[in-house]
């Protein structure tokens, strides 16, 4: 006797219609009423074909749902999710080498601010930035070696992101590196582009001029209006930085028009007024887009966001996200970049084996040329995967990929949001639990809530303005999603 059961999925409603997000394929289907009712019934508990005979046209509906694996026969083996470790000795035909695309260059680990929540300098730091063996500034030689390393490891396109500390404290090396990378990239026939992250305190007219002329993408770390910014983003003497940075940012936005300039906001328990921050940074200051991230910190710190804080954050994210929908329906720009990024992943149907590209397509380089998983681990011996001189330590890299594959995160195996989240940030997990391999269980509810909001928005746009998704289509990455 054949009995049918629902397989992993998440149902949601958008624009009055039922939709389903399938796990782990990450496919999104709109359902008609018959399919919706049947899927609901089977989600309640498995039924035999006979128990379902009251449904009209039942065999056709069953066949459609079974075809996309939204349901399956009881006892039938579940669909296979092969554990393919990228870069591992070719075990599967589909495994292929993944080129390095992004290198984050920590040109200095020094900073002229003393933001109290900083993961690099605050109580949660993992590298001794003050007295450690890492030089305070990257030398020109190391930067050149890093560029050579990147161009060796990269495919046709390479990105360099300058990072710190405060990146602009080492502006002279940054200038030389841009010139050297351009020259070397041209010689080897690859293209290279640049971006940097800064706290904006050191943006002088000549620096702004250089950034604009060289089409360097800029992300500014800023928390919002004066009262918010000055709470955590302070100088060593405790004075706030808002009055210094605001005019400099305005000047940068006025002069630098070749690349969109984004603000990157750190949210803390004392700083959760997302909409107010967004309004200020876009309307008053003029940022093109604003991205928000909850602070990475141990649970015991005063500024750590706790359960209730995540709920408040989600409510405000939801409100801003619906503003985004209204703008998108009219094909207007809206700068809430968290939505934009998630929508793109939903549209492509990304189903991740790893939460991010760290250790794979993205690597961080410490001031002495040690290569780490990402910029947040730069300089940490425990998370080192090579040096720019000797190249990537493939053994360490594959061991990392082996350990951190989603199939090892048992907590995630029953979560419908895992195609997008895949356990979350390694550094966050390291800070919370002392282990990069742990799933970030402290924000699961938040991630599922936020993913649900984004799915609703995606569904709504698919009904009201499907042409909007054309912006996420580009030929060269079509092959990367499988």
């Amino acid at each position: 006797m054949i009995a049918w059961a629902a397989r992993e999925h998440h149902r949601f409603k958008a624009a009055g219609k039922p939709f389903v997000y399938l796990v782990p394929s990450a496919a999104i289907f709109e359902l008609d009423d018959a399919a919706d009712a049947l899927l609901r019934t089977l989600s309640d508990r498995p039924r035999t074909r006979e128990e379902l005979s009251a449904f009209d046209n039942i065999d056709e509906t069953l066949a459609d749902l079974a075809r996309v694996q939204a349901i399956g026969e009881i006892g039938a083996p579940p669909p296979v999710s092969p554990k393919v470790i990228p870069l591992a000795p070719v075990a599967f035909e589909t495994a292929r080498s993944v080129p390095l695309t992004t290198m984050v260059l920590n040109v200095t680990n020094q900073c002229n601010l003393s933001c109290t929540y900083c993961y690099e300098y605050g109580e949660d730091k993992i590298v001794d930035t003050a007295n450690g063996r890492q030089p305070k500034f990257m030398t020109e030689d190391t930067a050149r070696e890093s560029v050579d390393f990147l161009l060796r490891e990269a495919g046709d396109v390479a990105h360099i992101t300058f990072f710190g500390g405060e990146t602009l404290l080492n502006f002279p090396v940054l200038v030389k590196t841009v010139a050297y990378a351009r020259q070397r990239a041209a010689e080897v026939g690859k293209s290279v582009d640049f971006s940097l992250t800064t706290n904006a305190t050191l943006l002088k007219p000549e620096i702004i001029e250089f950034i604009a002329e060289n089409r360097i993408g800029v992300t500014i770390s800023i928390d919002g209006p004066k009262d918010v910014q000055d709470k955590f983003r302070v100088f060593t003497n405790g004075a706030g930085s808002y009055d210094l940075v605001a005019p400099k940012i305005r000047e940068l936005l006025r002069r630098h028009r070749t690349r969109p300039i984004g603000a990157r906001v750190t949210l803390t328990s004392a700083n959760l007024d997302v909409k107010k921050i967004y309004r200020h940074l876009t309307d008053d200051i003029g940022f093109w887009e604003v991205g928000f991230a909850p602070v990475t910190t141990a649970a015991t710190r005063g500024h750590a966001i706790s359960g209730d804080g995540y709920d408040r954050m989600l409510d405000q994210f939801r409100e801003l996200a619906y503003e985004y929908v209204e703008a998108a329906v009219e094909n207007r720009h809206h700068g809430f970049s968290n939505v934009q990024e998630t929508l793109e992943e939903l549209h492509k149907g990304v189903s991740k084996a790893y939460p991010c590209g760290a250790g794979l397509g993205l690597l961080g380089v410490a001031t002495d040329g040690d290569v780490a998983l990402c910029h947040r681990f730069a300089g940490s011996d425990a998370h080192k995967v090579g040096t720019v001189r000797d190249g990537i330590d493939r053994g360490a890299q594959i061991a990392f990929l082996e350990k951190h594959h989603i199939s090892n995160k048992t907590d995630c195996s029953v979560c419908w949001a895992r195609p997008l989240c895949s356990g979350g940030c390694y550094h966050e997990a390291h800070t919370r639990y002392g282990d990069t391999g742990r799933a970030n269980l402290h924000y699961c509810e938040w991630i599922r809530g936020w993913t649900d909001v984004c799915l609703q928005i995606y569904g709504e746009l698919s009904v009201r303005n499907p042409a909007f998704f054309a912006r996420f289509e580009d030929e060269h990455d079509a092959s990367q999603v499988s």
Partner: protein
Amino acid sequence: MTHLKSVNRKAARIEQATAPDVVALQRTGVPQMPHFPLGCSLIFSPGWEADRTGGTAGLCQPVERDLFDCHIGCYWPAQVPDQLNHAPDWTAKCAAAQKDWRKMDLIFP
């Protein structure tokens, strides 16, 4: 599909990839699942229209088609012994298939 409408890119690919397959064994393209002709003997009353993967490649091979269940549950009964025409006493010694299947002999036309 009539009850589902693909919305994102992955859904469109699934729809494409699972389009009804009438050529089964001639199926081409990568990635191809390994072909295990599991037949239908793993369970006692399978639906014979399609195999576990939704195709027909995993169904029984002709040589295997003299298994007990073929002549009752199978919808291709013509080629196997049936108890009306070819072998009225074929299962006489087989009270319970799970236990007594060894007592059934091969039948030659």
